[in-house]
């Protein structure tokens, strides 16, 4: 079998952290050079060390470094890259960036700028879904205005038709920004104003709309790939229900408890939206599933998702490899088509947890710092995606993700068992991470039974109590360590001259280097 030619000669990765590392690895696997970019906070970061070349963008704040479109494109041109992979976050969903890359004669590894533009506006996406008969979460299909008294009255009437509690959401939004929860019509006007102001500040677009808050619900999303012929396929779904503050904590593929028929139906809904939008490359359609089994369309993310790895493990393909070959204009690969073929009836299961520098006993408050000991889990069915090596700092300027720990097994129970085992092997010190929460999830009977929803964390997790249970063991460990240190310090008081045995062994080792 001949090895296919690399889709590009050289790729610039317009990102940092674990996702930059993950994309650099794909570049090297496919025989392409990888060009990193970095801010001053990341000058010695792992993505810079792994890349074939690296270009400085500026000081740590994202607006002065990773968000500088001109600097990123100039770096690509100067370093001779022929494509730019944006990763997730930063510039990945900015249509203007994709357009500027295209205009510079470079390839943007992702959907075309026109598709990003169309689907990036959530109202546009909701209308696109409605136009192909895919039901979106109940709410408005147009922006809600509150400038004139009659508009306010209309907004209140619409809200009452939709029903409370509802959410005010930013059309250009993401990650919960610009979002407000409203429980009655009296709160509505203030929430619209506040949401709009926040959206305008964050996204430069103050348009907001109303959406019913569906609770309890599961967050299920469909991975899509599309090629230049207009063909769009679904590579299975992921359940991302375990969230706090609309940020995902745990993801898995496939979604537990769905029948093959339900999966087929869900994938078909996603493909319908993707095809209608003219999707190319990779994107994800997000849905909410209510307890009655109905799926409601939420939005489309026109980029590689943080949690793409669980689909890769469960479905047996490399999504970043696919992104590169699709971006080079090649058709959907045989591997991708085969994965799409078995997507409704996958034969393995994968779970990912996001190990973040946050304190799960203090409502997941972020806490950057230097990692002092970092022993990653390994072994059968375990994958770790990280941009952190021992001694690195988790900088306060960017998101708190330290590592994604993924476990893969023939079925969900095996994946959970491997996850639990992997998390027990994980060692990290210097910063507080979300590890205790993930250990709790991996042991929880309800989670094992597949009983998940977006309310799960609030209903089941008591961080302070979990932490309090560990205090005694920590105090014991501290005392034991101190006692051992004292024994070692006083000659002859330790167990049978331990120190001199070590010294003797070290001497023997330095002389006896070669096997006899």
């Amino acid at each position, binding site marked *: 079998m001949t090895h296919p030619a690399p889709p590009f000669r050289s790729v610039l990765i317009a990102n940092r952290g674990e996702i930059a590392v993950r994309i650099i690895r794909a570049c090297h696997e496919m025989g392409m050079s990888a060009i990193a970019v970095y801010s001053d906070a990341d000058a010695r970061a792992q993505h810079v060390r792994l890349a074939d070349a690296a270009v400085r963008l500026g000081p740590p704040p994202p607006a002065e470094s990773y968000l500088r479109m001109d600097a990123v494109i100039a770096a690509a041109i100067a370093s001779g890259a022929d494509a730019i992979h944006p990763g997730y976050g930063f510039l990945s969903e900015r249509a203007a960036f994709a357009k500027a890359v295209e205009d510079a004669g470079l390839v943007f590894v992702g959907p075309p700028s026109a598709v990003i533009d169309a689907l990036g506006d959530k109202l546009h996406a909701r209308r696109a879904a409605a136009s192909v008969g895919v039901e979106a979460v109940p709410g408005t299909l147009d922006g809600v205005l509150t400038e004139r008294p009659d508009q306010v009255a209309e907004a209140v009437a619409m809200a009452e038709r939709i029903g409370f509690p509802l959410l005010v959401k930013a059309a250009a939004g993401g990650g919960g920004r610009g979002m407000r929860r409203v429980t009655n019509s009296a709160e509505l006007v203030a929430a619209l104003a506040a949401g709009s102001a926040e959206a305008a500040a964050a996204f430069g677009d103050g348009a907001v709309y109303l959406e019913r808050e569906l609770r309890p619900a599961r967050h299920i999303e469909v991975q899509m790939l599309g090629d230049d012929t207009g063909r769009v396929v679904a590579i299975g779904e992921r359940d991302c229900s375990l969230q706090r503050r609309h940020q995902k904590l745990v993801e898995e593929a496939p979604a537990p408890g769905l029948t093959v028929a339900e999966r087929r139906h869900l994938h078909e809904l996603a493909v319908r939206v993707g095809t209608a939008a003219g999707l190319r490359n990779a994107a994800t359609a997000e849905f909410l599933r209510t307890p009655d089994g109905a799926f409601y369309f939420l939005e489309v993310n026109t980029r590689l998702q943080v949690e793409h790895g669980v689909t890769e493990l469960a479905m047996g393909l490399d999504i970043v490899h696919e992104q590169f070959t699709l971006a080079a204009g090649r058709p959907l690969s045989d591997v991708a088509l085969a994965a799409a073929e078995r997507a409704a009836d996958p034969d393995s299961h994968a779970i990912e947890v996001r190990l973040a520098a946050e304190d799960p006993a203090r409502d997941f408050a972020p806490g950057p710092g230097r990692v002092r*000991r970092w022993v990653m889990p390994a072994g059968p069915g375990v994958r770790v995606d990280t941009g952190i090596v021992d001694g690195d700092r988790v900088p306060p300027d960017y998101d708190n993700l330290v590592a994604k720990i993924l476990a893969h097994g023939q079925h969900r129970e095996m994946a959970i068992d491997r996850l639990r085992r992997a998390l027990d092997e994980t060692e990290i010190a210097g910063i507080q991470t979300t590890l*205790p929460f993930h*250990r709790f999830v991996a042991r929880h009977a309800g989670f094992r039974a597949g009983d998940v929803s977006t309310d799960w964390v609030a209903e089941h997790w008591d961080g302070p109590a979990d932490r309090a249970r*560990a205090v005694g063991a*920590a105090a*014991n460990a*501290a*005392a034991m*360590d101190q006692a051992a240190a004292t024994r070692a310090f006083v000659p002859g008081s330790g167990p049978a001259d331990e120190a001199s045995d070590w010294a003797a062994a070290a001497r023997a080792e330095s002389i006896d280097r070669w096997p006899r």
Partner: protein
Amino acid sequence: MTRLRVTDRASGDRVGDLDPAAESVSAPPSPDERPIVLRATTPSRVRGRTSVEVVVAGWRFELEVEDADLADLRERATTDRAAALHDGPTEVRAIIPGRVISVDVAVGDIVAAGQRLLAVEAMKMENELRAPRDGIVERVTTATGQIVEPGDTLVIIL
């Protein structure tokens, strides 16, 4: 084996008072709760305490360990100092073991806070003991040349 006191660095709360030789402490932790113990990056602000970072089951603790007897002594000294703000006798106690090399006050002397009362030599080092507050020396319970142990009362100030 001495008893060890473990204190939470941030809150100052006592989280354990343990005898490392005791069975309950030396029992190995279950494999899924293997602790990580590292020296802290910054030393304790309190003399005689060792600062450590401990991670158990993913939870990170900044703890300080010290000899429990010394900790009790310090606690008592602190309490005495607090009490000194009110009326009543204040006991000045030895905080290190050693030999008294000079006694600079006698019963009935009026002393000011910070004034030298006596000196104890330990490991060739002279350690001065000073008056914690203004007062009158009510009793001197030691003399030059005497060996003292931590906690021994040396001078009482009224």
